[in-house]
């Protein structure tokens, strides 16, 4: 279950966030977030529901705009980026959605081909087939290639969602609740897959979760989001060696109950 050693380059930051603030109406979700993601690192963001974890990765992927602060992703400042530059940047970022967000009307093959065909001009049919089969093989679901998303289980859908992002060889992976709603065995498989993606595709990842098993087995570093700010950042043991009443229940619920 413990995570193996990853090749992290601590000299190279792929994401830098300073003083990030985001509100929805009167509700301040993020209140001055500072964050660095190093190349090759898996950073787990923990926090209660509604604390803005998903909002954070949506800002990183350009789906939402920050109210204040600086967000720098792969050398691009999201405050000053043009629409065209953002589109190019997005190809370098993979986003795995909580509900997988597979295109209902397309087969698994079409789901995977969709971003590939639209981002790589002049790609041949053979190259498309090779890429699709390669990523499906990487997630262990080559046999589902002609199935519709409605015919897949929750765990399979998650894997296909990850495969769809991997097809563009992203440098950064953003996982939104990768193990939510899955049985424990499938959760372990997804955790292993996240680690395999880190190793084999050399990605840097932000993993949003409140599943501590997932956090422990995938995270090189844990960041605890409390009251709109990262209150505790460090290794799993460092984050949870505290008597803070806002942190302790996470550990107790996941490992003692």
């Amino acid at each position: 279950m413990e995570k193996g050693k990853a090749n992290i380059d601590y000299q190279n930051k792929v994401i830098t966030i300073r003083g990030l603030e985001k509100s929805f109406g009167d509700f301040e979700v993020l209140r001055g977030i500072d964050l660095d993601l190093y190349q090759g690192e898996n950073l787990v963001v923990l926090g209660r529901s509604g604390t803005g974890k998903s909002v954070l990765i949506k800002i990183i992927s350009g789906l939402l705009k920050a109210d204040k602060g600086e967000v720098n992703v792969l050398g691009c400042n999201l405050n000053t980026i043009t629409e065209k530059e953002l589109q190019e940047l997005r190809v370098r970022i993979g986003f795995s959605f909580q509900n997988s967000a597979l295109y209902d009307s397309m087969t698994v093959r079409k789901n995977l081909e969709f971003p590939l065909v639209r981002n790589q001009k002049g790609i041949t049919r053979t190259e498309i087939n090779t890429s699709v089969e390669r990523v499906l093989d990487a997630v262990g679901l080559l046999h589902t290639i002609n199935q519709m998303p409605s015919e897949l289980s929750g765990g399979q859908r998650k894997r296909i969602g990850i495969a769809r992002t991997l097809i563009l060889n992203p440098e950064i992976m953003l996982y939104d609740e990768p193990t939510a709603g899955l049985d424990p065995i499938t959760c372990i498989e997804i955790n292993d897959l996240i680690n395999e993606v880190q190793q084999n595709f050399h990605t840097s990842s932000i993993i949003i979760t409140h599943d501590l098993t997932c956090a422990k087995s995938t995270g090189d570093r844990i960041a605890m989001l409390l009251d709109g700010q990262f209150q505790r950042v460090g290794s799993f043991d460092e984050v949870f060696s505290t008597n803070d009443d806002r942190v302790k229940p996470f550990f107790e619920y996941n490992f003692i109950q």
Partner: protein
Amino acid sequence: MSTINKSPVPAAKKGPSFKTRLSNAFVTLYNINNFILRFFRQAFVPPFEFKEVMRQCYETGVRSFTLITFTGFITGLIFTKQSRPSLANFGAQSWLPSLVSIAIMRALAPLITALIAAGKVGSSIGAELGSMRVTEQIDAMEVSGTKPFKFLVCTRVLATTLTIPILATYTGFIALLGGYLNVSVNEGTSYTTFMEQVFEPLTFVDFVASLAKAIVFGFTIGIVGCYQGYYSTKGTEGVGKAANGAVVTAMFLVFVEEILIVQIAGWFR
């Protein structure tokens, strides 16, 4: 012991004020305007999604084909039947084909087609895009570096704009067929004579106006359906609202456009 003084009649829930509603209406109008401009900015710029446009054209046509055939035929038949007594009072039954053709080709064919398409196609577009929005499929397209607006909205709007004029023409001929059946049974008019009388009162302006109407109706149904679905919120409730909003708004706009185009066509006659 204290008692809680409960009013027997619950206080009426206050809705938004007139000022808020008015300002919301202007915001919506502004957003729709931007949506339309975005369509024109993206629809005619490569890369083109020919395959998806063709697929949507097929979907639009197939979804409405049976209902349009049935409704068109019945409309022509009933309209002819109901008009006969009035003309018979003046001994003018022979004008029946001309009357039917003017009514059908100038007004009924595009209008009936648009209303059916608003119900069948508009609601389906609203629900489909609404569902894609709430299940984050549109966001997924966006973060994978593709343009969901171009793939989802432009293709559907182009498909309705191209298909509804074809369907309207088809409705016209099917309705005339219904009219012919009635005239043929009652007056024994031959097909050739009926068709000669049908086309005699129609002018070039009638055909152009009818075609223009169908194009405008098709564009409206596509844009309204896509707008409602694309900006759908609030989960499954939002999907229902998007589908309903697509039908109601499109039908309302179709009637407004009908009045305007009839007025404009009148100036050229």
